């Protein structure tokens, strides 16, 4: 019976062939969760559609000044000439989508809208994410009474339904500016992110590699920063993607309630839909339809991507 060197009888080319064949069939064995998920994501048509929508939206947002025919806040004499309170001029030469209720170029406002909407959505999400992650990380890392306190606070915040909390925050704000809206929408998400991260970190805390690190005497701060946090972030990132859609919908709802961004010079889709859109639904439905469609599309894009990410990261789907 031969020992460890039993393959000596094998010709070299065949050995290579085995290695090659082995490598092929064992694909998917040692690949990390995230890379694996990424691969599955790329194969998922839903994710592709979502990502494509977002990409398109991003490109328009970034290159708005190049794409848009005009300045979005300029009032044009040729548009104000025919503008009255009960009729808004439609398409004309140089103004493919016609005027908005103040004689500004509607097409340009739609295009710049991508930028402003992205701004509101991203900031609201990021601020929520930042504070949520901070609170969640502190709670998850510290444990004890700190954890209890933070969780109680998030309980109080979660006690109010999201949009209601945002409405209340706007009502309770000292000033009403675009930031009021962004922060109100952001704050709503803080407890969600905090709880998500904390839960995931608690699971991490008991995991083997954290226990091992602790046994090796790694400093607590390093354990949290290097081991617990990165591994807990994936769930949070997925949530952030989904949050973006909610954020722009909430911003639109606030505008509709008259509690949104008060600066109507700002071309933001939610503002355009919630303020002018519904008012001019009969006089010029495009003023409502275009921003609404844009919002639906973008929300759809982020939802599609977020859900596919969640699906891809779900260990249950690793087969």
């Amino acid at each position: 019976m031969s020992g460890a060197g039993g393959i000596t009888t094998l010709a070299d080319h065949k050995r290579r062939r085995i290695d090659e064949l082995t490598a092929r069939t064992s694909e998917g064995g040692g690949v990390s969760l995230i890379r694996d998920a990424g691969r599955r994501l790329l194969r998922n048509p839903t994710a592709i559609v979502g990502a494509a929508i977002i990409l398109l939206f991003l490109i328009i947002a970034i290159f708005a000044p190049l794409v848009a025919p005009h300045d979005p806040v300029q009032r044009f004499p040729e548009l104000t000439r025919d503008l009255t309170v009960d009729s808004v001029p439609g398409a004309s030469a140089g103004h493919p989508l016609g005027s908005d209720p103040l004689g500004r170029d509607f097409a340009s406002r739609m295009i710049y809208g991508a930028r402003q909407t992205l701004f509101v959505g991203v900031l609201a999400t990021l601020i929520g994410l930042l504070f949520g992650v901070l609170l969640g990380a502190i709670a998850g890392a510290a444990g004890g009474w700190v954890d209890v306190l933070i969780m109680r606070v998030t309980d109080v915040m979660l006690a109010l339904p999201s949009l209601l909390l945002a409405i209340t925050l706007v009502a309770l704000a000292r000033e009403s500016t675009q930031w009021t809206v962004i922060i109100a929408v952001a704050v709503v998400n803080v407890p969600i992110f905090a709880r998500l991260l904390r839960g995931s970190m608690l699971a991490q805390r008991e995991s083997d590699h954290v226990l091992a690190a602790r046994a090796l005497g790694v400093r607590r701060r390093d354990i949290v920063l290097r081991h617990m946090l990165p591994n807990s972030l994936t769930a949070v990132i997925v949530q952030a993607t989904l949050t973006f859609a909610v954020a722009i919908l909430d911003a639109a709802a606030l505008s509709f309630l008259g509690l949104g961004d008060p600066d109507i010079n700002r071309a933001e889709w939610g503002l355009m839909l919630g303020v002018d859109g519904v008012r001019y639904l009969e006089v010029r439905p495009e003023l409502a339809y275009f921003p609404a469609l844009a919002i639906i599309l973008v929300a759809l894009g982020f939802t599609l991507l977020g859900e596919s990410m969640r699906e891809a990261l779900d260990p249950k789907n690793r087969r």
Partner: protein
Amino acid sequence: MVRVVSRRLIQLFVTLIALMTLVFFWLRSLPGGPVDALLGERATPQTRELLTRALGYDQPIWVQYGRFLKNVVTGDFGNSIRTGEPVTDVISRSFPATIELAVAAIIIAVGLGIPLGYLAARYRGRLLDNATIIVTLIGISIPIFFLGYLLKDWLTQGIHFFPPSGRISTGMDNTDVTGFFVLDGLLTREFDASADALWHLVLPAVTLATIPLAIIVRITRASVLDVLDEDYIRTADAKGLRNATIRKRHVLRNALLPVVTTIGLQTGALLAGAVLTEKVYNWGGLGTLITDSISGGRDYPVLQALILLAAVVFIVVNLLVDLSYAIIDPRVRVQ
């Protein structure tokens, strides 16, 4: 069970006190507020001073807080600035309107959502499934006030199929017993009022139901798919049970567990959605009250009470969901 409930109630109490204190001090620190709201454009500095004294705003904040707490504990939330009525009256009048709307929406969302989600899962990958997924995705992505406006525009204006707003036809002169108009009509045998109220309920309820419906469909679908993968379904198959039995007895009951949680979570979304829906349909409920209390004049007493109420409702609903969970899931029952 009793311990769970009582612990939750204590938690509710603590949350409320914290919330109340926070809201009180915050409101007092804001510009404008009751004095501004109570006085129109015609106020002279003289009336302003009178009012400040009358409301006790010249007293130290701790005195005001003490009085506020004392009042709240005795169930007195003060009077609405806008209407001058006791806040409790205003709220107890608006509450049934919103509950009526929310219940109708939940009935629609659950009644349609569970079967639809189930069917989508059953015919996974087929046309019905794909169509359902797309429609629900749009349902989640559409701003619901816009949807409300569209529905209203299409179904109440060109063709006068549904009434455009309100809870009941003007001048119906229905007898108000419980505040739930549909129910009142049945109780008082004013069936025309009941039918009229129901007819008014359709569009708002459908609008409000959109998001919960979409979410319930998606959760049900995912949950059914999960359950179909479970070992005990294989066991049931191995027993040779009929498909119908498996579906009813084994799949549905287990698949409903996460759906019940979702329904509970959606109650919150429903309250938020009610703010928009009620504004669109001039529905005199809590949502309208919230909007009016804010933009119609910073009606802080009402706002204060509403915030507390929303928290109570949310917490109570979650408690109910947990309890119903215990009923459906025997694993929870023993703990």
